[in-house]
């Protein structure tokens, strides 16, 4: 064997071991998630939910909605919050320097009146100055107008400073919560004081009609780009996050739908204004704070608490989003590197963070490297076409298996997409996703990580909202 062939074989073996670990690990997470969701369905939920809903001592939840130029969807989002099945709610919308009619829509719809500015908690910094504060007659909806500094985190922090709830729920202005989703997340907080944060499943809302927070027509998005994202979200939320949360190893709670104990957020000074992954940054900061203080704590996840959100429907928007996410990943892995392989952080430090590094951060580089090696081998004749084809089929097949498991789990225990047509369409999407979607995301991830390494200025980009949530609401 020549030296070159030896090197090639070693590379192949390293890649094989890398992917073997990935797939074994994924099967482990899938199994944990499936068992967790199946177990959860066995509990007699109804009584605890009825009791919590009817109890005047249920903890006040401040729902924080940062809004920047969200006139298309803000009314639907706030309406869905006002229809939530939860007894003690304070809705805080932060109009973050909108130049469209976001504020007018709210003011006209809810009859807002100006109020005295609230006394802020100074533990959370705020960079963009608050201009004025408004509220409804019953005080359940407050709108804070502030100067924008172009950061969602600063808008959330503005609301965190004045939130009164024992629990704070952060959602996006283009999101809609299913009516019982907040109740589902709050009940564990009440039972277990050691729970500091909780997340729910986020799914694409594009092209779906809603009534009172529930989809009324076709559940599947119409565009392929959104469908690819749906499969990706199902895999990440239903399986990934449920599995990691079971072992207290969750590294992120989506900014589109997360519930925290207010005190735990205030202790870490709210969201980091400069971060591009402020949701992951916040959760890791909370983890870190709890471990430093030596307190027993848990971060949980309930896959059956659903939030629908508008996902990018154009390639350009998706590209900007994914580059930003990858740059954010680079930021947090660098910022929280001391957690990596740190036994004090248990599963989070010993498994979840290394997993994030190996299979979120490094994976796109290896995928592209593997692809280039295969193509070069094919062109130069080092590798036979049959071998490359088989390798590709293996990769696609294994990726599809995980997608299939996500479909099975959601179908058996969550009953989101159950009709024959929907399941077939999801299966087809799972098969096509590794071929037509994932390569793009890998390239964007590399671009984002590269930008992060260079210390490039972070970009938020602009996502044109189509008001996917507005159809039948209100």
């Amino acid at each position, binding site marked *: 064997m020549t030296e070159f062939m030896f090197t090639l074989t070693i590379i192949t073996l390293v890649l094989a071991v890398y992917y073997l670990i990935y797939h074994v690990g994924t099967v482990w997470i899938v199994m944990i998630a499936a068992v967790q969701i199946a177990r959860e369905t066995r509990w007699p939920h*109804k*009584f605890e939910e009825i009791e919590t809903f009817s109890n005047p*001592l249920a903890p006040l939840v401040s729902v924080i909605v940062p809004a920047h130029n969200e006139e298309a969807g803000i009314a639907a989002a706030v309406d869905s919050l006002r229809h939530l099945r939860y007894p003690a709610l304070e809705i805080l919308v932060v109009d973050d320097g909108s130049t469209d009619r976001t504020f007018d829509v709210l003011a006209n719809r809810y009859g807002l009146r100006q109020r005295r500015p609230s006394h802020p908690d100074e533990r959370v910094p705020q960079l963009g100055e608050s201009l004025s504060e408004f509220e409804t007659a019953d005080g359940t909806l407050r709108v804070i107008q502030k100067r924008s500094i172009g950061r969602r985190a600063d808008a959330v922090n503005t609301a965190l400073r004045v939130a009164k709830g024992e629990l704070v729920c952060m959602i996006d202005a283009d999101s809609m919560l299913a009516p019982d989703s907040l109740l589902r997340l709050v009940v564990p907080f009440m039972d277990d004081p050691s729970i500091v944060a909780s997340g729910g499943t986020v799914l694409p809302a594009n092209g779906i009609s809603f009534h009172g927070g529930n989809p009324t027509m076709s559940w599947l998005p119409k565009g392929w780009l959104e469908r690819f994202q749906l499969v990706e979200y199902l895999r990440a939320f239903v399986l990934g996050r449920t599995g990691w949360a079971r072992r207290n190893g969750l590294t992120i709670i989506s900014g589109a739908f997360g519930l925290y104990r207010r005190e735990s957020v205030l202790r870490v000074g709210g969201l980091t204004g400069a971060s591009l992954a402020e949701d992951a940054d916040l959760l890791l900061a909370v983890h870190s704070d709890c471990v430093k203080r030596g307190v027993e704590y848990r971060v949980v996840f309930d896959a059956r608490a659903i939030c629908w959100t508008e996902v990018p429907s154009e390639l350009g928007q998706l590209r900007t989003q994914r580059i930003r996410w990858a740059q954010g990943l680079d930021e947090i892995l660098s910022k929280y590197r001391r957690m990596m392989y740190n036994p004090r952080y248990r599963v989070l430090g010993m498994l979840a963070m290394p997993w994030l590094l190996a299979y979120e951060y490094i994976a796109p580089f290896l995928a592209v490297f593997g692809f280039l090696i295969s193509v070069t081998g094919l062109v130069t004749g080092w590798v036979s076409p*049959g*071998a490359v084809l088989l390798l590709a089929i*293996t990769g696609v*097949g294994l990726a599809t298996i995980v997608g299939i*498991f996500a479909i099975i789990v959601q179908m058996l225990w969550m009953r989101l997409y159950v009709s024959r047509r929907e*399941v077939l369409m999801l299966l087809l999407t799972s098969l096509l996703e590794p071929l037509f979607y994932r390569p793009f995301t890998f390239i964007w991830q590399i671009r984002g990580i590269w930008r992060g390494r260079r210390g490039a200025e972070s970009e938020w980009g602009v996502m044109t909202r189509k008001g996917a949530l507005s159809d039948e609401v209100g």
Partner: protein
Amino acid sequence: MLTLRLSEFVLVTVLVCAGPFVLALLLLLVAVAYSRAKARRASANREKYLDMLILASEGAGDPAPARRAARREVADLAVHLLSNLIGQEYRQLADWLLRWGFEGDAQEWLGSRSAAQRLRGAVLLLLMKGEAAMPATLPLLADLHLRVRSGVARVLGYAGTEVAVSPVLRAIELDLLAPSIGMMSILRIYPRDGAPLAGGMRSDSAPLRRVAAASVGILEMHSLREPVETLLDDPDESVRLAAIETLDRLAAPGSMALLRAALQSADTAERGAHELALIEQALMSCGTVPSEQMLDFDEEGDAL
């Protein structure tokens, strides 16, 4: 040319992976069929059992199904229904469940290894039998599973009586129950006897003292004003705050002297702005506060 070795390697990989892939596809097919059949059956059963339970709540009703899985479904539906019924309908449905042997099911579930099943048993038993079920269900306040303990506390609040107050307070004291859940339970029970709460205010456990003090205020138990007043100087701030809020609610002029003393004592500097503001609020509820005694606060909320 790397054809043979790599091809062999890839072939082995594919053969190893093809199995799981085919298996996953088969599993998907089975899951689709199973899920659809299950959904159809569940929907039909739900309709059938709900009709049966509604008839039972009206005094009639067919015999309950004998199959274990079906009885579990009926029990869950019955719990849902019972928590929405009152008066005669509630009693008739509970009697129907007792008549068709659901007490035996619930007792069996109480001893189950599955925590969810234990909770199911406790909820059903308490809703069917009320106080008579408490000897069997109160031990579950010390269950190994937190969710069972909390669930039992919730249903005790709904269907329990004063007998449950002391065990709930004890569970808070032993850190077996979140104070907020215990307090909700106590308030729902609405006890008339203040002795357990008075005992709670003397406990070494700060969360219990806080729950007891706060409950006295919400339940407006004027007879327990004095034990609450002793908590105005409690070392735990949350207990002091609960005591002040309770005195505010009770609004008894007799508390004014102690509240004023708390406002003017040497410890005032150690009390936070929020606490001092609450004391002022309580003083106003109990009587009037001379303006010269009102504290001023700076922009940061510190007392001047």
